[in-house]
């Protein structure tokens, strides 16, 4: 494998969606990223990535209930597909492999 090139931002978005579990919709994802990573994210940047990941079937989405605060608009909740989970796990294992191969003295100086 290893052919699914996930960008750094894509990876973060996938992870955040996974963290938020059933509550992963646009603003929630942005808030989570802002609090955990102290990183400013625009709706445009996030939404393009979300749609792209959905198109590549890392993610699926479904509409939720209407809420008043959103001017009566429904939320779209994202969740990881099996494939998405698999790819994320793979990436994690690759990283871990790399880390474990790292000789200790490399960081000691």
């Amino acid at each position, binding site marked *: 494998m290893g052919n699914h090139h996930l960008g750094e931002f894509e990876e973060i978005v996938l992870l955040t969606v996974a963290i938020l579990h059933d509550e992963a919709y*646009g603003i929630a994802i942005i808030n989570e990223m802002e609090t955990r990573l102290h990183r400013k994210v625009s709706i*445009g*940047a996030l939404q393009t990535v979300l749609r792209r990941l959905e198109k590549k079937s890392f993610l699926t989405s479904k509409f939720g209930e209407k809420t008043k605060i959103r001017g009566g*608009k429904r*939320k779209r909740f994202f969740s990881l597909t099996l494939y998405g989970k698999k790819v994320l796990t793979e990436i994690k294992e690759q990283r871990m492999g790399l880390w474990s191969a790292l000789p200790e003295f490399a960081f000691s100086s």
Partner: protein
Amino acid sequence: MARQNRQSPPKLFLQFFRWYCNPDYLEDIEGDLLERFERGKEGRGRKSARLRFVIEVILLFRPGIIRSIASTQKLNQIDMFKNYYKIAWRHIIKEKFYSLINIAGLGVGLTCCILIAFFVMHELSYDNYHQKSDRTYRILQEYRSGSERATAPAAEEYQVWGNAPVGPAFKEEFPEVDQFCRFTPGHSKLIMANDELYDEKNIVFGDSTVFDVFSWDLLSGNPQSVLDNPNSIVLTESLAKKYFGNENAMGKTVIYNEDVACIVTGIMKDVPINSHFTFEGIISMSTFYNQRQSIFESWGYVDFYTYFTLKENSTIESIKPKLAGLAEKYTGDWENTKFYIDVEPMKEAYLNSVAARQPGKTGSKTNNTIFSLIGVFILLIACINFINLSTARSLERAKEIGIRKVVGARKLSLVSQFLSEFFILALFAGVLSLSLVLLLSPYLKEFTGVNIEASDIFNIEFLGLFSLGIIIVGLIAGSYPAFLLSKFQPSKVLRGNFKTGKSGVALRKALVLFQFVLTITLIIGTITIYNQLTYLQNHELGFEKDQILVMEFGFDGEVQENIEAIKNEFEKDPNVLSICASRAVPGNFFPNGGTEIENADGIMISHSPAVYEIDPDFLSFYNIKILAGRSFSYAQYSDSVEALIINNAAAKLWGYNNPEDIIGKNFDQWGKTGKVIGVVDDFNYLSLHSAVEPLTLRFEPYSMAKFSLKISTGSIPLTIKSIEEKWKELIPQRPFSYYFIDDNFDKQYRSDEKFAQLFSSFAVLAIFIAGLGLIGLTTYSAAQRTKEIGIRKVMGASVSTIVLLLSKEFSKLLALAFIIAIPASWYGIQAWLNNFAYKVTMGAWVYLLTAVTVGIIVLISISWQSIKVALQNPVNSLRNE
């Protein structure tokens, strides 16, 4: 309101977002935006939240979010167009016969149009290639004598051919004139090059300014100075090749008239075909000046074509008022004659000049107009076929249209559907016509000299224009049917008993009538043109032209010295029946000369008639009738010194209606004085385009240039061979060249013949297209009435009654077309016939013949189908109900 407004996000940006956002994403992203805005308002305040909102909207405007162009309305339209083309294509395939008629008709029509356009463009392009053509003019001259001298000549009376000093005088007197350039006509010149003798008819003398005034391409040599020195010659590429083959001709010597050695100082490209004046070589004018200085000062000696260019920023209008003054200054002292000058733009020389004695062939504006009209007519006929067939057959498509409308097609989309269908047909026709043009271009070149190369067609300009033309044709032919078809009401159409409206039928009839009128006009035109040409060729010219051979010796001094002995030698040949010598022969070049003859009141009156220099055998040789007096005679020595013969037109010009009365009157011409001794009947020494002009004939042993030989009808090649052998023995210093006088005379009608051939080919094509349309229409109307015909047959109608029934409609139209076409064509033909002084009379038989021809063509077109239908067994047509 305003307060509340500030509580909500900026409306304009929200709307902008809604407009661009992919509808699939719109709801949840808009929700996100609003949620963020609300939270931001609570946190950092209204203003910052609004700003944030604007930024978010702008940042959302990116490819992943924006609705795709293809996925919306426009994609839908492309699909519809695809569908239109599919349907159109199916329809074309299904109705092969009608599609073929439409495509063939339009294609042939377009081909005619393109060919005609190329021809007319060529005619219009004459002399435009000269860089200074906008400010190049030529000088026209005319001498008026006697009682006419005070009245300025008419435009047709001016001559392009004039005297030598007027050019230099222009340059001296008028500051507006930049350069002038003179040519002499290319009379036959004896040229020796590479030890070979040639009789050249197209080498001229030209001023050294030639390459300044005109933009002919000089391949080698210095354009400023090639013709500066005496005894220089510039050859065209083809003449250089003829003389020296592939060798470089520059610097070689060419001997002119046996003793003038000229150095080749330049080689120029051949004069382009679209030039009103062409030549093959130029000898420097100073060479001519050295030979005959006196004529360069003589205002009365005519042998030059004079062109001049204006300085930039000068206008010809400022010169025109000064022309009379210039003539007065130099020729004011003339007693009996007044000299007139006029100028005309060189660009007009080919098509718009009516002046006499042109240096080359001229075009005809009338012919161009006629051809352009024919092109339009043919295209119209093809378009009419298209309209007729599509409207007539609209019933076939009625159901389709009904269903489309029910399903929700708008009128406009139906129009565009049909138009796109017609465009496909027009496109096919266009491709067909382009291939036809390429296929036919060699014939066009042979006919008219107009060369169409593939590169003339496959360039952006042409293809652009052509596509535009196709679109226009598609619109002309297609818009009426398209609008008619799209007007159908689905409720009526789908109910079943739908009939096309009466208006369509009336229009169809009118269009067929129009086609008939055009066709009949073209046929009448063709018949008349051929009629006129045969008339010209069989016209009694007043002299004999059969079996007469003309041999030129170009004023050779030795021949002139021994002319009678040489004539005797030739006459010894048993195949030579008789012989005479002269300077000019009918159908050929001749000079004009200022001539004074005494009128009835004893006053010498001056005119400038044509001059033929002949020997005493000439008149009897050519069988020219003597009306009064006598011919020249060898017995009377004084005949070559003080005698003149004139033709009847000249006698009338001097006011003698009875030719007897002018005999014995005094004359004064070219240094010769004496008495008029004879009057000959008018014979047509020029083409029959013009009436016989006044002519004088003088016996001048030392001005002879040609022998005319009447030969027996036996083996002509053998006779010519034996004559040639004799020539080599008698006149070895001259090349042997000959032509038959009737061939030469008929050459004058070659352009008329070409016109006739072109005209008739286009007429045939027009008739062909109209015939195609008729076949299509009758096929359709017969198919419509299959049942009716079946029932009639069952009731006992004969085949002929049914054919008659089907033809009746068209026969009525045909009769009506005749009533319209006869006056229309008569008018057009009279305009064309006015080109000729001798016109054929238009007999009723022309119309009768046309009626029969058109009748037959129409009948064939109609009966093709109607007989087939009439012969069908009614069982077949009535069985399937």
